[in-house]
């Protein structure tokens, strides 16, 4: 901490503070009070989307990684194809394919149109959650494949030798070790997922990014909302980084 506060850094910090004050004084922030409730609800939507798609995506990434690491070919091949397709095409296109493409196919099937789910399928958020989940699963599945492959085989053999049933070996030995292996990458992937959330603004979901767009349309003010937005994402990314550093520091040391 002391190394951070050398004179050079203090001067830079001062310059930064001067920049912030200059922004606050000379730029036009008159729109802010009016849009604060919308901004807060946008922030909430962003965080909600992030958490939900991370959890769902991770739950999907585990079988994807497992299938690729040790699965038989008829499971490994589709899993690999899925990951390749997700990683090889832009997320924006995937979102639009699901929302506009799938959304325009669904009404052609009467059994979907008459089902209980139909009112939900006409909204944007199921498509947003689905596309972000699949995207995260595609990237994270690739990471999990490496993690599953790198767990020490001797430990699994030892557990088997003690007569542990297969599912117990998986949940007690294999999965925890693999997750600990991926922790450093997981932080990076989480920030990538955070940076992916603004894309759902293009399918009418009002999250943080969409609020800035609305301010621009209403008031023709361009820089102020975008700067505020960038600052908000920096803060969220910083919290995620610190959180993962904390988790990594807490976990028992890897014995190597």
């Amino acid at each position, binding site marked *: 901490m002391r190394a951070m506060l050398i004179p*050079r*850094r203090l001067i*830079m910090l001062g310059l930064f503070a001067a920049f912030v004050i200059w922004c606050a004084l000379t730029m036009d922030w008159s729109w802010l009070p009016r849009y604060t409730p919308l901004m807060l609800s946008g922030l909430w939507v962003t965080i909600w989307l992030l958490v939900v798609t991370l959890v769902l995506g991770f739950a999907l990434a585990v079988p994807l990684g497992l299938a690729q690491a040790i699965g038989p070919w008829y499971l490994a091949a589709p899993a690999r194809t899925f990951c*390749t*397709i997700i*990683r*090889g*095409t*832009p*997320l*924006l*296109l*995937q979102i*639009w*394919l699901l929302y*506009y*493409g*799938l*959304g*325009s*196919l669904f009404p052609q099937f009467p059994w979907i149109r008459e089902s209980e789910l139909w009112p939900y399928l006409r909204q944007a958020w199921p498509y947003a959650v689905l596309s972000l989940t699949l995207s995260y699963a595609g990237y994270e599945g690739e990471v999990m494949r490496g993690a599953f492959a790198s767990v020490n085989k001797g430990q699994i053999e030892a557990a088997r030798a003690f007569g542990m049933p297969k599912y117990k070996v998986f949940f007690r030995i294999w999965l925890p070790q693999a997750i600990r292996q991926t922790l450093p990458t997981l932080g990076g992937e989480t*920030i990538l997922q*955070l*940076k*992916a*959330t*603004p*894309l759902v*603004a*293009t399918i009418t979901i009002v999250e943080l*990014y969409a609020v*800035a767009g609305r301010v621009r349309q209403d008031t023709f003010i*361009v*820089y102020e909302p*975008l*700067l505020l*937005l*960038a600052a908000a*994402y*920096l803060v969220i*990314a*910083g919290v995620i980084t610190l959180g993962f550093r904390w988790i990594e520091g807490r976990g028992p040391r890897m014995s190597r």
Partner: protein
Amino acid sequence: MEQTLELLSLSPPGWGANLLRGLAASLQIALGAFGFGLIIGFFGAMGKLYGSPWVRDLLEVYTTVVRAVPELVLILILYFVGTDIINQIAAAMGRGPVEISGVAAGIWVLGIVQGAYATEILRGAIRAIPPGQTEAARAYGMPRAMLAWRVTIPAMTAFAIPGIANLWLIATKDTALLAVVGFSELTLETRQAAQTTRAYFTFFLAAGFLYLMVTLFSGVIFGRIEKWARRGQPSHRAS
């Protein structure tokens, strides 16, 4: 099926030609941004490794901010900043507002983003060179420029290729984001075709296929380049 093929055909009732034109624009922007990003990355890595403390801290701010803020937000900020600067220069020279081409704007905007990632990749690659190699070259009295050209760059290339390959894939995929700002590249052309014909699923699938072909083909090319860059090095992977 026949209807689908007709929609995708190259000559007018079909929209295939539009998609291919969009693909060409996407690749053009991606290539330009990739090159621009590598140039920034090279100087950025040099600055981070050998620059003064001020330069290092400033570059740290650049890479941290760019890598933490969503590309879409950066694209908008950089796009407006870029047009503002150019228009102010034009006004100072006594001209009216300038029309900026989509390709140039896309290259400028995505290049700045790519530069931050390239800085980190190249810095890591230079750090991975065994220090004995550069020391030996310096012991022979090689001047700095020659040392960079003959030792650092060739030795670094092999380490940098996987990251650089990733960066190129990100460049091709990030061009899609420009559709949100309204540049007509593949994704926007696709959306326009889909909206006109109401065949959303067909066109987005077709565009996905095009992107996938580009990324798969790039993977093969970069695999070759990596093999070439590693020639003469003991390989730790049996293949």
